Structure formats: structure tokens, C-alpha cells
């Protein structure tokens, strides 16, 4: 086995690492932004909102992300009526398609998380808010969501890692992320073990750092506030 390849692969993969980081952070962030209204809709009293959100999470969680990415990148540009619309230029940029696909997928999972988190907030919290005169939206904004997010925070940290892993599928639609770059280097060097090992190491480092960041945030934000904590005098 040629060990020099470990070293010579590292720099090109590190260059592609930026794409992986961007894909993960943007996919995760947009997934969180889209997931919030989905979660609110899932836990709302409106039948229409709830049904739409359920269909969305059911379809997006029930189909493989790879297929979703292939549809967005290869499928949508075949719909000729989209030509000339504002979304057309985005559909031919693989990185944009991958970000959209990952975000929509992550939003479905995040929506289910947020919806569950909202439903787990004790009913008494809403009652107290109502008797204090808060509107429904104020109750959601100041009372329910802060508690819901605290309870699902560890799962959101996990979702970040899952998005990072999911980003590897972007290489299937011509994105040169770490995985895509690794595959093209393998095609030139025929050294899959060394190249993919380096790629795996990069993901591992990224995931570990992200995990530490979330643990740090959790310790700070979720400090002494156990929900429903009774007496601790």
C-alpha cells in the first residue's frame, strides 16, 4: 500500500471540505428555518395546516434523500414550463440544488421534532399564559417555543450531524464536496482505501467539533431549568 497517498490526498480534500461545511451549515440552517413553521403547523389546531404539514413530513421522510436530490437536479429541469421562471437558474447549479434538497429533507425531520417538542410542553403553561392575557402567538413565542426547543435541543444537535452525513449524497449530483472530490481522486489514483480514509477522518473531525459546540450550547442554555422541576431548595 502506498502511504504517500494519505499525504497527497489531504490538501485536495481539505479544499473540498469548505463545500461540505457550507452544504452542511446552509442545509441545516434552512432546514431549521423551514422546520419551525412545519412543527408549529403539526401541533396547531387548524386541520388544513396540520394536514399539509403531515403530508409534507410523511412524503419527505418516507422517500430517500438521494432520490429527492436526483429529482431536483435531474428531474425538475426537464419540466420545460419552469424555463424562464425565477427558480430556473438555481436548478442548474448543483450546489444550490443539493442545499435545497438537504434543507427540505432536514425541515421534514426538524418539523416532526419541533411539533413533538411543542406538544410535550405541559398544558398548564398555556393555561397560565392565557390567564395572564398572552395572545396565542405571544404564548407560542415567549412560553411554548423556548421550552420546546430546550427539550429537543440534543436532538437538534444530532440533526446537524445527520445533515453532515446526508451532505455526502450531494456528490451524486456533481457536487465536489469531500465525498465527490474523494471519488474523483480515487478514479485517478486507484487508492480507494487511503483516499476514503482521509475523507472519513475529515468528516469525523467536523462532526466531533460540531458535537462539542452543541454540548457547550446545551450546557449554557439548558442549565438549571429542568422543565417541570418542582422543589430543589
Amino acid at each position, binding site marked *: 500500500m502506498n502511504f504517500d497517498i494519505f499525504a497527497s490526498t489531504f490538501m485536495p480534500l481539505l479544499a473540498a471540505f469548505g463545500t461540505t461545511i457550507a452544504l452542511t451549515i446552509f442545509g441545516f440552517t434552512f432546514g431549521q428555518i423551514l422546520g419551525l413553521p412545519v412543527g408549529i403547523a403539526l401541533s396547531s389546531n387548524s386541520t388544513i395546516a396540520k394536514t399539509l404539514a403531515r403530508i409534507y413530513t410523511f412524503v419527505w421522510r418516507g422517500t430517500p434523500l438521494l432520490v429527492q436530490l436526483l429529482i431536483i437536479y435531474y428531474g425538475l429541469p426537464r419540466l420545460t414550463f419552469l424555463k424562464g421562471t425565477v427558480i430556473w437558474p438555481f436548478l442548474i447549479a448543483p450546489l444550490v440544488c443539493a442545499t435545497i434538497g438537504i434543507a427540505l429533507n432536514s425541515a421534514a425531520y426538524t418539523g416532526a421534532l419541533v411539533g413533538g417538542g411543542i406538544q410535550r410542553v*405541559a398544558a*398548564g*403553561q398555556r*393555561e*397560565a399564559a*392565557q*390567564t*395572564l*392575557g*398572552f*395572545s396565542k402567538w*405571544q404564548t407560542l413565542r*415567549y*412560553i411554548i417555543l*423556548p*421550552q420546546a426547543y*430546550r427539550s429537543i435541543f440534543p436532538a437538534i444537535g444530532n440533526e446537524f450531524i445527520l445533515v453532515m452525513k446526508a451532505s455526502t449524497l450531494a456528490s451524486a449530483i456533481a457536487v465536489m464536496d469531500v465525498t465527490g472530490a474523494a471519488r474523483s481522486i480515487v478514479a485517478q489514483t486507484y487508492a480507494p482505501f487511503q483516499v476514503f480514509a482521509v475523507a472519513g477522518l475529515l468528516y469525523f473531525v467536523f462532526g466531533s467539533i460540531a458535537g462539542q459546540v452543541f454540548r457547550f450550547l446545551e450546557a449554557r442554555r439548558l442549565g*438549571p*431549568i*429542568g*422543565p*417541570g*422541576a*418542582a*422543589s*430543589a*431548595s
Partner: protein
Amino acid sequence: MSPAARQATDAPVVTVRDVNKKFGTFDALSDINVELGKGEKLVICGPSGSGKSTLIRCIAGLEKRVSGEISIAGRRLDSDCANASVLAGVIGMVFQQFNLFPHLTVLENLTLAPRKVLKTSKTEADALARKMLERVHLSAHGGKYPGQLSGGQQQRVAIARALCMKPQVLLFDEPTSALDPEMVHEVLDVMASLASEGMTMIVVTHEMSFARSFADRVLFLESGKIVEAASAATFFSAPSHERSKAFLRKSFPGMVHQ
């Protein structure tokens, strides 16, 4: 209702007229009538499942009802409670389980509603909150989270939180039932001092000796119906109904009623 029980001098603050409430087919409340004048203290008592909590929750706008009128300080509450927000700043509710907001400090618990609902400035809301904390003897605890306080302290914070909205009526739904015995008195003391300051209050409680010293009037419920509505003096010394007598005998063993 006996004439003696109706002592309101001016227009009633709380009016409950012919209220009916069902849970499915079960009659939780039947034809309930109550009027409460400014500064009056009403205790609602009765055995478990008699509908006392349901009644106070109806008054607070937390339970829909089948029929009947509920109005507080002239604001009429729809029977489906869709307009419950008209009671903002009119009622204050204290729950058995405190229901403090666990993610906010004590001070934030007290200032959030004044700031967001009444649009009070932060400085003003903070000043009011500190005054109310002092009133419930918790000045030193403003920066703590509810989870760091004892049950009795949490319930006093809940009372202070309700007071920060300057309500015209305070409602208490079994405020001491979730507390350890040694913490009950600290909450009752605060309630008694509010009463002496002229606050209009409705209290659902099992603490009958407290009720006797605290209440102006008593409503005794059973199976969702008012069995007896009387002044506290009459109810505790000469209850007219057999059920009330039996209930009081259990509450005050050793006392004999005629």
C-alpha cells in the same frame, strides 16, 4: 342564594348566572349562580369531583360551558371562551401546580405579561415586579429559576406574577394542595394579607380552618350543584344542609353542629 349572602354594595365584580357545564354527557356544573362584590372573599368547597375546580376554571375562561353568563368587571366571557383575552388584567389565576415558566427567572416570570400584554416599559415592569416580590417575601429570589425554589416559594411567585397584572379578581384553584404541609402556611399567610388589603378573591380549597377565618362567603358544591351558599359565619356555625353538616364534621372533627 340567601339575602344575607349577598352583601355587595355596588355592582358585582363577578357575575355567574345559570351556568351549565358538561364533560361529554356528565353534568359537571348545573345551574350555578354566584355574585361577588368588590373586596369580597368567596371560598368554594365540597368533596372531590364536586365541580369546584371546574367552576373556577370556567370563571377564568379556561373551560368552555354549555350555557349561562359569566362576566367579570363588566366584561362578558363567551361560552366557548373564544374572547378569553377580555379577562387580561381583570383576573389573576393561581394554579395548584404553580405553572411558573421554568425557562424564565422569577423576575422575568413577573415582568413578561406586563411588558408584552400591557406594553409596560421594562423599568416600570421591573419596579412593579420587585414590589410584588417584596409583598410575597421573596425579594432575594428574583434572579433564580422556578426549579431552584421550594414549592411554597414557587406558589408565592405565582401569586406575585398574577398581581403584576393588577387584576380586579384573584382566583385560586387549590393553591396549597400540591405543597408539603410545612409550606402551606406561608402561602395562606400571603393570601390572608391580600384579603386584608381588600382584594376580591375566589378560592377553591380544602383548608377549611383557613376558609373559616378568611372567607366572607362560602359556596358548598356537590355533584356540580350548589348545595349551600351562605355567609361564612352562617356556614361554619349553623349550616342549613345535611350534606354541609356532614362535610364540616369531617373537616373539623370534634366540633358538633346542631
